[in-house]
């Protein structure tokens, strides 16, 4: 227990400054994300939308890094602790790639081999609007 105390005592200097700095970074990153989100609303081009979404994901990862590294203090821990937490999380790279690829492939297969489902999903949703009105009348 005394060891942990000695370690924390070393980190006292500059701690407040670091917190203010990280808070500012997180705020700015969030504001950029929101600005991109607002900007994206008026954009029709699918490619540009995809690029903006990619940028937002990168900003999200940057925010996650700052929270984990500074707020959760992981950056100031010993290397053993950092590795035991971060290395298993690398599995996510494979999870995300494999599952999203699988989802995309599933959609393509359905659209190719299940024309009925494809037809259903391209029908405009006028019926939904009606049923909503009916529901609101019911509640009245």
């Amino acid at each position, binding site marked *: 227990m005394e060891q942990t105390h000695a370690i924390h005592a070393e980190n006292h200097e500059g701690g407040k400054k670091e917190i203010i700095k990280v808070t500012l970074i997180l705020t700015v990153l969030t504001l950029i994300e929101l600005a991109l989100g607002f900007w994206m609303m008026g954009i029709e081009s699918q490619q540009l939308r995809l690029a903006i979404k990619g940028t*937002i994901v990168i900003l999200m990862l940057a925010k996650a890094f700052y929270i984990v590294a500074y707020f959760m203090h992981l950056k100031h*821990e010993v290397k053993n602790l950092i590795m035991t937490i971060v290395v298993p999380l690398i599995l996510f790279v494979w999870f995300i790639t494999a*599952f999203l690829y699988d989802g995309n492939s599933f959609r393509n297969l359905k659209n190719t081999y299940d024309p009925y489902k494809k037809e259903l999903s391209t029908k405009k949703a006028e019926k939904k609007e009606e049923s909503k009105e009916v529901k609101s009348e019911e509640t009245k």
Partner: protein
Amino acid sequence: MSTTTTATVPTKLWSGGKSPFNVEYGKLMMWYFLMSDAFTFGAFLIAYGTTRFATNGWPNPNEVFKSYPFAGENANAPLVFVSIMTFILIVSSVTMVLAVQAGQQMKKKAVVTNLILTIIGGLAFLSCQAWEWNHLFHEGAWWGRNPFINADGTASTTGFTNFFFTITGFHGFHVLSGVIINIVMLIMTLTDKFEKRGHYLMIEKAGLYWHFVDLVWVFVFTCFYLI
């Protein structure tokens, strides 16, 4: 495996007698718990992504989340309310860092103030979420019911609402647990439990949990409201 690790670490961390991670046992276990929790949330969000990739159309979040409290029926302010929620959580995370730091310096009064601020932030976030759920419910959205049409005007599946309520609900439950943990910490601080122990390490563990809740919201916020 263990021999190679010993070789790469220059300090005597693996020579025995103390934790090679140089943290207290409880804190290490909190880290492992949070890692497992990250996999739980990751599984949820990846399932959401997979479903979204496997579905032809998806509702536009700017159409769904465009209202805010005390607004009329025709409110059209996408992203505004949720950004307020995001900032509430970031600020409460900052006050939690300050509480942890005050604990390391054995300043009981500062710990109490910052813990109270964190609890207020948590409760504010929960209230916002309660309002949003209530609002969406009255628009007809719930598990298995989706009143919102897809962005391209086609009929939507219930995937959107199912995932939204499950994941934000799971996150909200984490916030609730965090608030309860912080209240327990506050009571323990006020009754001088930590002063008698001589350290505030418990606050640091509660702090880790609270930051994790903030961390998860970063991902939920991005996945559901922004992209």
